[in-house]
């Protein structure tokens, strides 16, 4: 039953991705800009311009370009079907390799940030709901006003100023490693895992130290909506009939709260999943402040340079991950919420 459900979802997801890929392919070509002019930015001649255009394949008919991109025209070289996302027009590197470098950084950042944010937000949200108007509740209110009042890059810059420049607790915002530390040999692409595999605890410590401030900034930003969501859902659950019944039945407070939490978590998990997918491309400001070189920064660079293959690659990867996250969410939902059935 579950396997069939997953299979069907993946099938539908593939169709969704394919439609999106084709739509994006045409949409970026409709934009009123010309990627070739950046190439020949050295005041080059018309001949040089035409040559650059030929090299990019932009002189071919649109459908030939699409066929090449999808990989259905073997004469044009490998495409999506053959597992190739093309070559970046900015760097000449395969897009897959570049995304393979940028994506792990963003995933590590988001995973650490979400883990810490959940560890903090769920208990705080619960407490605020259990005692409305109490210290936790008022604290949450003040914090959400405070954190939400400034954009995240501002908080990032402020944190850098205070924790690096003034206090010296954090390392310089120079990425995940100090400039003179050689990175561990890449195995998984995730630098924390690679440090472990290479048996270099000192490097692992250094990486975690470098993640400290960007993660703290993200937690500061992310916790607001998560706490609010948990609190609201918790309040709703606490007011529901089954909690009233549990209370009437004289169950201990802790047990009632646990029941309520389980009911409150289902919608919260959805929000967290959506936030995660959104943040894959949306963590760009944090990445920029801390020089992390993640997927968001890669996406922005690609868009600004009109690097078509890279833009298409980033959208494809973010869509695929988001679809997988949503699938995982639905599966988790089914575990949490007995009312959900695979249909």
């Amino acid at each position, binding site marked *: 039953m579950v396997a069939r459900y997953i299979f069907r979802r993946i099938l539908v997801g593939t169709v969704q991705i394919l439609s999106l890929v084709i739509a994006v392919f045409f949409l970026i070509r409709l*934009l009123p800009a010309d990627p070739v002019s950046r190439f020949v930015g050295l*005041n080059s001649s018309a001949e040089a311009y035409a040559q650059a255009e030929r090299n990019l394949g932009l002189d071919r008919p649109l459908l030939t370009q699409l066929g090449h991109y999808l990989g259905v025209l073997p004469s044009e070289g490998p495409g999506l079907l053959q597992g190739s996302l093309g070559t970046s027009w*900015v760097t000449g590197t395969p897009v897959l390799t*570049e995304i393979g470098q940028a994506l792990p950084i963003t995933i590590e950042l988001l995973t650490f940030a979400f883990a810490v944010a959940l560890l903090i937000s769920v208990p705080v949200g619960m407490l605020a709901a259990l005692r409305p108007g109490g210290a936790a509740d008022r604290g949450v209110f003040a914090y959400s006003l405070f954190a939400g009042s400034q954009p995240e890059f501002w908080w990032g810059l402020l944190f850098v100023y205070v924790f690096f420049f003034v206090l010296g607790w954090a390392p310089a915002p120079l990425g995940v490693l100090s400039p003179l530390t050689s990175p561990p040999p890449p195995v998984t692409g995730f630098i924390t895992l690679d440090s472990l595999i290479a048996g270099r605890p000192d490097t692992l410590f250094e990486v975690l130290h470098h993640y400290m401030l960007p993660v703290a900034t993200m937690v500061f930003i992310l916790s607001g909506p998560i706490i609010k969501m948990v609190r609201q859902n918790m309040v709703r659950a606490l007011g529901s009939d089954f909690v009233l019944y549990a209370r009437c039945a004289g169950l201990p407070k802790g047990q009632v709260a646990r029941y309520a939490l389980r009911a409150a978590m289902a919608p919260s998990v959805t929000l967290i999943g959506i936030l995660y997918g959104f943040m894959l491309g949306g963590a760009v400001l944090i990445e920029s402040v801390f020089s992390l070189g993640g997927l968001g920064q890669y996406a922005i660079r690609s868009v600004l340079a009109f690097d078509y293959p890279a833009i298409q690659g980033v959208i494809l990867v973010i869509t695929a991950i988001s679809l997988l996250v949503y699938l995982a969410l639905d599966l988790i939902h089914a575990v949490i919420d007995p009312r959900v059935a695979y249909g």
Partner: protein
Amino acid sequence: MGQSKVTAAAALAAMALSGPLYAQDLLFLAEDVPAGLNYDGPAAAIPTSQTGMVNVLEPLVGYATQAANDTGVITPDFDSFEGRLAESWSFDEASLTWTFTLRQGVVGCNGATFNADDVIYTFERAKSVSGAAPIGWFLSNVASIAGFTPDVFGDEAARALGPEVQKIDDYTVTITQSEPNALFLPVLTIFGLYIFDKEVMEANATDEDPWSHDFANNTDVAGFGAYCVERWTKDDEIVLAANPDYYRGAPAIERVVMKRVPQSSNRVVILRTGQAQLVQGLTPREYDSLRDADGIEVGGVSGNENLFVHMNFDVEPFDNPLVRKAIAHAIPRDQIIQNAYFGQATPWEGHVPSSYPGYVAPETQYEHDPEKAAALLAEAGYPEGAGLEAFGEAFQLSYVAEKETTLGPIVNAISTAMRGLGIPVELNPIPQTQYGDRQLVKRDLPFAINDQEKPIGVDAGYASQLFFVSPEKGGLNNMVNYRNEAFDEMWSKARVESDTAKRDVMLAEMQGMLMDDVAWAPVVEYTTQWAYSDSLKGLQWHPDNSIRFFDLSFE
């Protein structure tokens, strides 16, 4: 924050460092790191990529230097060339042939020795036009090297290197021009004709990629420069190690880490803690804030960066010279220098960078004079701007949106001044790529400000050909569709004039025409700057604005 607190904070922060820099290492923070090391590759036009290339590769000839300016930055002497990989050269006017005697005993990063084969390989590769952007071919064409014609794009046979670049013996090479052209030596100093190490490049070639573009785009590039690539992660960092065999002596700085820090304010903070010793790409305000900081120097040069107002001759009402003159007189230059550049700019009095040979400031100038501007506008038939609203779209002042921080105050100053005269200016920020497309390809931007034109050929004639010769007569980037037959005619004579004095007279006359016609409305020349630790010495400006780490040393 007081100075003592800053120092204490710097000390604390330095203690928190997990990877201390060694005495001879340099941490250089920039807005990006090289996206490629291939000058015929896709990243050639990106300034930070050029920084990578010029430190790993070496030219045949370079400029001599002159004494440091008042901020301590050494500048080139554009009238004097000196040998780099070429030890000496001679020119035979009758056959238009240059004979280069190459330096012996030059060793590259991989141990290969430099000789004539490397020069031949470099020009063969340029003529193959096999890369993403044919920069090497383009420069050879600009220098009138015979055989480097547009034919290479149609005819495969034309892509083979002929007798125009010839090996005489292991250390002698001749290069023949198709016509006299004073740009020959200046062009050889440009990074797009730096010499490759043939042996290593060929070792990294494949059947699909015989000219090793992938290698140079993604892994390394082989030449005979002062530094070798030790580690390179695009979008993150490049680590360069000194080439101990470098022919001008082993570099004083053994290792350079060029690190990408996208936020300029973070580059400032890290420099102030002492962890980084050199930063670039700050805003004028940030440079200003560092001028009095302890242990930090800000050095700069009025090199070739400038800002001008672009008015399209093909778009009404800019086809009317009176309107162009009125606008030129309405630009509040002093206000722009003070409020946008914090004094780090000077009024630009010509159409060519004032540091370039052949530059003159013509007699005609358009100083800020609102009354004169109003009178000219009335004379043009638009008293107090009446009637200009009919050209609504033409007065959208376009600028590159990504440069909002620096250009924002400038466009605001200009539009306020124009509106004061009744000119209905609207601001129109557009992305860089769109700006580039409309400027270079469509040439349909009616009204814009531009701060990014740096002619890479250091010569008033080159700048004239590039921007102002009619497209039909070989103008390459005539973004305002300026057409003046007398100008074209004079350039066709100046181009092949071998007597420098005569050529300079013609170039001066041409620059006068540009000013009389308001081909552009020049605004300011702004300072190209760096901020660095006061223990770092030897900073030198080069016309590509890329630092050569070989120039630097620690006190």
